[in-house]
């Protein structure tokens, strides 16, 4: 009886605190993004004052126009988009079959394989970026999309394989076996049965890889001389101290991220990754 009352009280407290907590968390998450957008759309007098207003008082497109007119937007945008998309497609094509095989390995072998995959992720990126970049430069991959795609793949493949192994593990073997009993080959079973079922997990993995590649900075810095990616372009504006154009660039950098996340967010449910955690 007493326990029941305590549970009721707890449920009531949770109910009361739920929305304020959600709103507070959202506020802290969204305010920096709002400020970024606001700076990009505000006249300097709105921002360069001791007490800047929360809302935009003097709206202007000037900073965006300057960015568009600078001639420094489309090429970096195109490069970032090409590299991120290519990296994602190749990563899925390479990692999906590999992860399927790993997921069907005996438990001990699987565990060691996954650990081995993660060995490459255990070193700080700045530490290994130089030797990797030197090798790529020797191969003539400076300022090429291919160089960046390969560098990003080296970084992303272990991660995406880890996610997909978890995804494939959750699919019962009996489904493939049933397909094979019906006359399907192993490849057909994989492409017609396993992959369609695991599409959600693949989408999540693809989204992570795309976002990571889109925002990647270290390899881009080493492997780029004249053709910058968008994060590098934003960085250069920040380094030059132009607050308003930096904010406009940063907002532009964020827009595709929001679009991709919006379309793939329905797959973002914890259950799709739970297998990966089981490892």
């Amino acid at each position, binding site marked *: 009886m007493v326990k029941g009352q305590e549970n009721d009280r707890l449920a009531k407290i949770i109910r009361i605190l739920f929305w304020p907590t959600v709103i507070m968390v959202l506020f802290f998450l969204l305010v920096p993004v709002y400020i970024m957008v606001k700076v990009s759309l505000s006249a300097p007098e709105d921002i*360069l004052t*001791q007490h800047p207003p929360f809302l935009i008082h003097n709206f202007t497109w000037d900073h965006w126009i300057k960015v568009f007119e600078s001639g420094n937007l489309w090429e970096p945008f195109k490069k970032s988009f090409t590299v991120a998309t290519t990296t994602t497609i190749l990563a899925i*094509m390479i990692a999906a079959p590999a992860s399927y095989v790993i997921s069907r390995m005996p438990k001990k072998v699987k565990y060691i394989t996954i650990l081995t995959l993660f060995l490459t992720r255990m070193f700080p990126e700045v530490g290994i970026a130089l030797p990797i970049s030197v090798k790529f430069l020797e191969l003539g991959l400076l300022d090429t999309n291919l160089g960046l795609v390969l560098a990003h793949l080296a970084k992303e493949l272990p991660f995406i394989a880890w996610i997909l192994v978890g995804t494939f593990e959750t699919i019962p073997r009996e489904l493939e076996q049933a397909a094979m009993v019906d006359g399907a080959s192993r490849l057909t079973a994989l492409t017609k049965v396993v992959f369609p079922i695991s599409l959600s997990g693949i989408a999540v993995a693809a989204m992570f890889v795309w976002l990571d590649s889109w925002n990647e900075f270290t390899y881009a810095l080493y492997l780029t001389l004249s053709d910058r990616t968008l994060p590098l372009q934003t960085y*250069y504006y920040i380094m030059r101290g132009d607050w308003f154009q930096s904010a406009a660039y940063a907002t532009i950098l964020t827009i595709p991220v929001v679009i991709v996340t919006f379309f793939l967010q329905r797959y973002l449910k914890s259950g799709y990754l739970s297998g990966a955690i089981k490892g």
Partner: protein
Amino acid sequence: MKKKWYAKLVVGLLSATLLLAGCGTEATEPTTEGDNQSQEPTTLRISMGLGESEWQVMKEKVFPQFEQEHNVKIEAVQIEAADLPKKLESMDAAGKMELDLFTQDNMALAPLVEKGLVEDLSGYRDMIPDEILPSLTSVGEFDDKLYFLPYRPNVEITYYNETKFNEAGLTPPTNWDELLNVAKTFKEKEGIGRVAIKGTLDGNTTVHLYDFIRSAGGDPMVLNDEGSVKAYTFLQELYPYLSPDTKKADWNTMNQYLANESVYLGQNWPFGVNVIVKDGGKEEIKAYHGWEGPVKESHVLGGEVIGIPKGSPNADLAMEFAAYLMSKEVQEIFVSELGWPASRSDAYGTVADWQKPYFEAVDQALATAEARPNVTYWADVEKATNDAFREIVMEGKPVKPTLDKYHDVLEVAKNK
């Protein structure tokens, strides 16, 4: 049928992605110099760290003449001072130097020399024009060898918010006593410090510490002499009246603090004029040369130098371009179009009206500018001066014993 469709899709995607991935800009093949007129133009690849408007002047007013005279195509890329060593290091290790010439912040030269990434230009001393200010040449010397050529001088100026100073009945400080008084007055009046120095405990702070120590007659490379003791003692006294932004103020954020009026007085490089006044429209932010210490006024000589990376594919042509950058003609373009002070005593130009007071402040500060000593153990020097600042000024430790400790640290570093 479906199998074929899937196979086609896979092959199609793979081809498309590889095609896309492969179609980046190809790295420029190094070309050899030849007959200027009859051959294809040689590509000279240079790097600089510039803002948009500065690039525009370079591309429209500086490069074309050299390109025409030497049958050259200049391919200029943006590399920030902090990134240049990494880029050169990777190209050098790969044996594929893609740059012919670079300009670099003279505060970031030691790693380039230490890692052997630049050519020794001692044999080219004669090509430095006599009109170049002598202190600019010494900036490029390490152990009596010349590694860098003079390009452009720079010096920190002091920014202040004229409106706030007028409201408080204050004038910009011209010596340490006045500086302390200004800091105290603002703190008492507003309950919060409005004077800032760059206190990020890195190269930004080092510049200020050098100014304070030298203007008290001290030697920052000794660090426990009378002048250094005076400087750190004064900073210890001043610190409680400084703005809380001091701890986060660097070359970038100082502009922001001045522009959003959380700081009314602070020193920074002249590029802040464009950011705060031109782009930000804060015309009440004025500038002057700064204050003097008990012995003299002193400012660290900053700016940029020209370097030739080891393995430059077109080193001879790059040297000709370096000579062109040091010429009277180009230096006058820098003055008139960019408001940069000239590195030559005979280069004059007319700056825009709005820039004039700021340009004068730079000129006056340059008159008392002193080059920083170039030593390969610079990282140790920087750490020692900043650690001493943290312990004495921020944590309130006794001045002399702390400086004695860091003097010993410097001696060890020197004899390493």
